[in-house]
């Protein structure tokens, strides 16, 4: 008897959850949710947060070498934003009942992944412009639909993030325009950086739809709103005219407008390379993780000192009462 009773309660909860999703309402932290929904969200939000945190490195690498005070101030602000994005997302993940230290630990011990894009090196200052233009550009295409994610805290974090991303993309594009109006050598640097970042940027949308088994479930749950290939197409369509305005060539001979589809056709990215980088064998994987561990270790004394100070203040406060 007890068994059937609890089964109906379970069914009711499940039905309420499904109705919330169907009506395009938001699921909030204290609501009942299927364990698969919670697991998927924790994995996705954590992976997203880790990407923002690791994503500071390729650009942070150029802060001390920025060619002017103006560019340095901009780059500092941008990298600081990325740290903020990571923290918004960790905060959203914590509403699902996971612990911040546990997530940090999973990044440092490589039990959770981050976006493959940040495992490529930034070789020249033109890379800073191209990252803003292409990498933040692709992030925007990925993130705008996530603002309507069925899980409230994730959607709200994405709204904050998207507001800031537009600055990221525009400063990058402006940097590239400046270089394209410079010397022949500078224009070559922009072209070279574009050649190197184009394919990894396309890979940011994840594997092709046929190879993305979780997409359907995520779409049913309202976590995802578009498939990987749809978003990739959208990014290509948006970027081609921007490349033309800039005067750079996108490195794909198969890139051509298809009037029947009303979209640009483009070649298949090298998915073997994508898998290699995801599995840890990209050009900078080891360096990125090692740098992150080092920073975490170097900051340990600050965290401990602050906690000790807070404890002391509290004891004093209590003594005063």
């Amino acid at each position, binding site marked *: 008897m007890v068994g059937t009773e609890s089964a109906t309660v379970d069914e009711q909860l499940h039905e309420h959850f499904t109705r919330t999703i169907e009506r395009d309402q938001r699921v909030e932290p204290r609501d009942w949710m299927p364990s698969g929904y919670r697991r998927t969200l924790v994995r996705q939000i954590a992976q997203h947060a880790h990407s923002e945190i690791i994503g500071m490195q390729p650009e942070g690498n150029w802060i001390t070498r920025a060619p002017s005070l103006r560019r340095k101030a901009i780059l500092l602000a941008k990298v600081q934003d990325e740290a903020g994005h990571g923290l918004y997302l960790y905060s959203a993940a914590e509403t699902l009942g996971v612990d911040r230290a546990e997530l940090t630990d999973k990044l440092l011990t490589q039990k959770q992944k981050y976006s493959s894009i940040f495992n490529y090196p930034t070789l020249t200052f033109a890379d800073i412009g191209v990252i803003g233009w292409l990498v933040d550009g692709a992030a925007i295409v990925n993130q705008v639909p996530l603002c309507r994610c069925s899980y409230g*805290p994730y959607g709200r974090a994405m709204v904050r993030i998207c507001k800031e991303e537009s600055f990221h993309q525009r400063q990058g594009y402006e940097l590239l325009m400046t270089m394209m109006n410079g010397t022949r050598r500078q224009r070559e640097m922009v072209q070279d950086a574009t050649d190197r970042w184009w394919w990894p940027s396309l890979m940011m949308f994840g594997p092709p739809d046929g190879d993305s088994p979780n997409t359907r479930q995520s779409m049913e749950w309202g976590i995802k709103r578009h498939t990987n290939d749809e978003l990739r197409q959208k990014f290509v369509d948006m970027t081609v005219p921007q490349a033309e305005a800039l005067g750079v060539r996108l490195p794909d001979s198969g890139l051509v407008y298809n009037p029947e589809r009303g979209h640009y056709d483009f070649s298949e990215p090298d998915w073997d390379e994508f898998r290699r980088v995801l599995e840890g064998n990209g050009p900078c994987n080891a360096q990125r993780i090692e740098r992150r561990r080092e920073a975490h270790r170097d900051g340990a004394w600050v965290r*401990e000192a602050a906690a000790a100070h*807070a404890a002391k203040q509290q004891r004093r406060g209590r003594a005063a009462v």
Partner: protein
Amino acid sequence: MTDSTDRNPEPGQVRTPDTAWPLFEVFVRGKRGLNHVHVGSLHAPDERMALHNARNLYTRRNEGVSIWVVRAEHITASSPDEKDPFFAPSGDKVYRHPTFYELPDDVPHI
């Protein structure tokens, strides 16, 4: 720091007592005349640092004129679920809403 084993600690060795920093919920007043609104959370060792961190994290672009931080453990919440009977008393009182009252279209300013 040349010892490579020191630079690559095993899982578990990397852990530091972050958990000792409590969780704070952050509320921001966007501008004068508006209520404080919940914007997210953060970890900090104490209230003062929580305010500092909240300023750096949630108001980098003048998003606020005032910030409240409160330890998450000090918040008492209504119920696990919004459909809960806790909100039922207001659910069936439609007469509390202006749209409940039908008035002729030609009455101005009401």
